[in-house]
């Protein structure tokens, strides 16, 4: 029996609203006890004691959307480097997209990802499986068998399931097994060949734009199909005010719908593209500041359930290109926590709500047994140095790729220690 005693912490659990000084006892990798008076008589004998020095102890972060590039593009990222980056950023669970090479649309690949994650042993890695074979948007994958093998949801990753008939059937089939369908809500016939938000800046830069409506149109269509099929539906990385409003309305109508956004959509706006900066080229694109503010409000009132890193590592060759030719996406594993905390530091979103979006909410959506400080839960924990100021420095990141528009940004708060199943997998020397 291994026992670890985390003493002198600020226990902070967004799932239950707990916010109290106290201690937490881990026995054999799971939370055995916690509370204000837990170690009043001292740490139990034989337990490894860790002094948390009053810092915030929260459930390990769950990143419900990341691209790990393994198998197939390991020169951009692999599961080992992504795991290191994740735990350095306080993330203990990563859910990866199926847009690898080969595509994760087969039972053997689901098993491969899970086994690799376990072998590396730094963070839990759960795969989404493709919703359609080869992400081609034509034929459904073996959703039932893939779920049995461990796929936590189904998505075509960075591509929308654009054909309404296929989407209906995918939802309907998924509902048979109560599976989650995750959509990249962007109508391709409206977004192509755009590279940034449609509007004044795109016009000035002479770049083809992607209208906000590309997101809203597809999302509204999907919500009607959800109404028809009753399937569990999750919209990924919302970027527009219209989409937030559509989800708000769908939830009001009682549809089984959830959604997430990613830090760039509340921390940046389209002006970041500035002088054709390809590090600010994302999919969906950075939007207007009105959209950005709507995203913040959506997080604050819970319309937006979760925040994902949307980690999209690209090598220099993919980014050092004319804007229209450059790849979309930025890395995010190591900036997720500080940017989420920024919402709270700025007073836009209460701390508990902001942290719920990266812990309890994704756990609930994905049906994972983590994301809360509770007796019996796995001891996947993050100790946060809440106020510590630092400057984002991409060259110090563990991720193999360095494509981030946040390089140099001053932020506040970071993961001082990360534990997976009661084991320390990351610790910052003071």
């Amino acid at each position, binding site marked *: 029996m291994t026992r670890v005693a985390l003493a002198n912490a600020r226990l902070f659990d967004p799932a239950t609203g707990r916010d109290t000084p106290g201690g937490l006892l881990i026995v054999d990798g799971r939370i055995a006890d916690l509370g204000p008076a837990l170690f009043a008589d001292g740490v139990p004998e034989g337990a490894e004691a860790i002094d948390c020095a009053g810092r915030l102890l929260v459930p390990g972060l769950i990143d419900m959307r990341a691209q790990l590039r393994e198998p197939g593009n390991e020169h951009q990222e692999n599961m080992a480097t992504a795991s290191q980056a994740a735990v350095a950023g306080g993330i203990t669970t990563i859910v990866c997209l199926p847009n690898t090479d080969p595509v994760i649309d087969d039972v053997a690949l689901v098993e491969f990802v899970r086994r690799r994650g376990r072998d590396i042993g730094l963070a839990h890695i759960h795969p989404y499986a493709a919703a359609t074979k080869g992400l081609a948007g034509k034929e*459904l994958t073996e959703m039932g068998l893939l779920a049995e093998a461990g796929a936590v949801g189904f998505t075509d990753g960075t591509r929308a399931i654009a054909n309404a008939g296929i989407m209906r*059937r995918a939802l309907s089939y998924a509902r048979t*097994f109560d599976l989650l369908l995750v959509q990249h809500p962007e109508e391709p016939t409206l977004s192509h060949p755009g590279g940034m938000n449609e509007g004044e800046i795109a016009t000035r830069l002479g770049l083809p734009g992607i209208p906000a409506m590309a997101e809203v149109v597809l999302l509204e269509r999907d919500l009607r199909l959800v109404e028809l099929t009753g399937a569990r539906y999750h919209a990924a990385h919302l970027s527009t005010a219209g989409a937030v409003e559509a989800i708000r309305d769908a939830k009001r109508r009682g549809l089984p719908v959830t959604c997430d956004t990613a830090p760039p959509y509340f921390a940046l706006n389209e002006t970041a593209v500035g002088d054709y900066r390809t590090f600010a080229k994302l999919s969906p694109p950075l939007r207007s500041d009105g959209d950005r503010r709507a995203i913040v409000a959506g997080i604050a009132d819970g319309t937006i359930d979760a925040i994902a890193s949307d980690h999209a590592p690209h090598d220099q060759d993919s980014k050092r290109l004319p804007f229209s030719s450059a790849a979309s996406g930025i890395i995010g594993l190591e900036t997720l926590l500080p940017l989420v905390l920024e919402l709270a530091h700025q007073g836009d979103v209460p701390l508990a709500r902001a942290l719920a979006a990266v812990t309890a909410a994704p756990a609930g959506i994905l049906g994972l047994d983590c994301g809360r400080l509770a007796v019996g839960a796995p001891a996947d924990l993050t100790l946060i140095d809440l106020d510590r100021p630092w400057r984002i420095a991409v060259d110090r990141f563990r991720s193999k790729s360095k494509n981030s528009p946040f390089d140099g940004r001053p932020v506040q708060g970071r993961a001082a220690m990360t534990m997976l199943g009661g084991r320390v997998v990351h610790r910052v020397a003071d």
Partner: protein
Amino acid sequence: MSSLAASASYPHRHLLGIEGLSAAEITHLIDRSELFVSQNQGADKKGGSLRGRTIINLFFENSTRTRTSFELAGKRLGGDVINMSVEYSSMKKGETLIDTAMTLNAMNPDVLCVRHPESGAVKLLSDKVNCAVINAGDGTHEHPTQALLDALTIRRRKGSLRGLVVAICGDVLHSRVARSNIALLNTMGARVRVVAPRTLLPTAIDRLGVEVFHDMKRGLADTDIVMMLRLQTERMAGSFVPSIREYYHFFGLDYAKLAVAKPDALIMHPGPMNRGVEIDSEVADDIDRSLIRQQVEMGVAVRMACLEVLAENLTTRNAAAVEAGR
């Protein structure tokens, strides 16, 4: 049984579907079928009640089994049976179907047994002819003789249909057999379930008086009869269900799934079967539980009964017409 009694018990000119038939009418057809079962098992299979009658099997869709069954039925009753296969693809819809009907009508047949790939086409044709029409399967609508032969098969083993729990499993969406069976079983007082992935169920199937399941073990729990349907693999192609192995894993009938049904539960299949797709070979061939062979046998008897009853009705009508004209 006199022809007058027959017309009183099945007072319709055609047999276009199960929908709308009463329990008494269905019972009458099954009772009549029963008489032919022993005749068909004997050495002398030939009767004479359709002597002088002309029966045309008009098939706009390939089907060796059903067509042969109708052909045997007509011949065993002493009728003259003609098979007409019409290449559907070479035929234009609507007007040409009616043209065909008018042409055939001019040859004065007594019964047309019609199969057509479009729902409602048999009804359309029946409106244009003077003879009796039996629906031998129209699109994804009805296949009444299949439901009647299923009912006869069940009744011979279970005594009655009333109160039985029957699970119809598989591709309900594309199945006319399912629709006819749902109507018949409900009318006869059985409890009907359908079990399929959502993509293979039509919208509002629950309004047809069935309980809907998407999990075989739940759907088969405590059932008396398990009716498997053919997965139309040509329609599958990754769109309705992802693959055969996934379908078989979740919805194929094997002993493990069958274990939750009643210990004496019986298995049926309208054929042709896809072994290892919707049904395990061992289960299909289990002589204690599988009724699949008996279904085929009952098919001939049921079609004989239907042909005879309709031919008798036709005689009664003609007599009445002559009477009225006098």
